[in-house]
């Protein structure tokens, strides 16, 4: 897994790519929580994620819950087909705020 951080308006954008599995999800979790710890509204871009398992999804859920507790915005952008399938099977596609592209972010 690789990651990059950029800005989009008032949001920080954490772009994850590659495979987010049990071996890589601790790094994804760390990056998500670090952004939120800085008090930043966060968009997690999953458009280049080839594979995500339940441990990766758990990192996203933890980010979602941490952001909500801190009254920060948290959304997923460009969720790849592979990642969307896992979210749908976990019934989390209706829990997260989802945007197709950064241009769709309100």
């Amino acid at each position, binding site marked *: 897994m690789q990651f990059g951080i950029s800005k989009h308006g008032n949001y920080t954008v954490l772009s994850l790519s590659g*495979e987010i599995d*049990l071996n890589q999800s601790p790094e994804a979790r760390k990056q998500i929580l670090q952004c939120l710890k800085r008090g930043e509204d966060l968009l997690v871009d999953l458009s280049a994620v080839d*594979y995500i*398992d339940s441990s990766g999804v*758990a*990192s996203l859920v933890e980010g979602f819950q941490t952001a909500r507790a801190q009254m920060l915005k948290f959304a997923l952008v460009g969720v790849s087909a592979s990642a969307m399938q896992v979210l749908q*099977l976990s019934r989390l596609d209706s829990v997260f705020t989802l945007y197709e592209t950064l241009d769709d972010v309100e």
Partner: protein
Amino acid sequence: MKKLERIHFIARADRLAPVRQFVRELARQQGCCEENLEHLVMAINEACMNVIQHAYRGDENGEVVIEFWKADDELTIKIIDFAEYADLESIKSRDLDDVRPGGLGVHLIHQVMDYVEYKHQPDMNGNVLELRKQLGVDRQCTAGDRGQE
């Protein structure tokens, strides 16, 4: 039922990517449609994760064996560990309305496989998860749906 392959690996998270790649190649060799291929990869990855995290509890000396069997269009996968007996009654899906990190693996496995059975190894320490899935070889696949040879 014909045995296709038997692989083994040590119970470490960094071994999961090669296992997923192996499953993809095996499923493609068997003519599996792309949708079912991804379901197989998902279920086997989640099952191996559970062995690493819960059966061996992070003990990297643990061994995991995966056997692949085939009868007609059905693939049977046996994921075998040599850890202490698991409490089979405790292995179940959780309430998805309770949104919290973790605990989704068993739910995902049941969602994408046709048959799921957890059992103890009969003559030694260890557990076996048996999964079955129709490969969909005879199904009319859409263009690009069938896995690449």
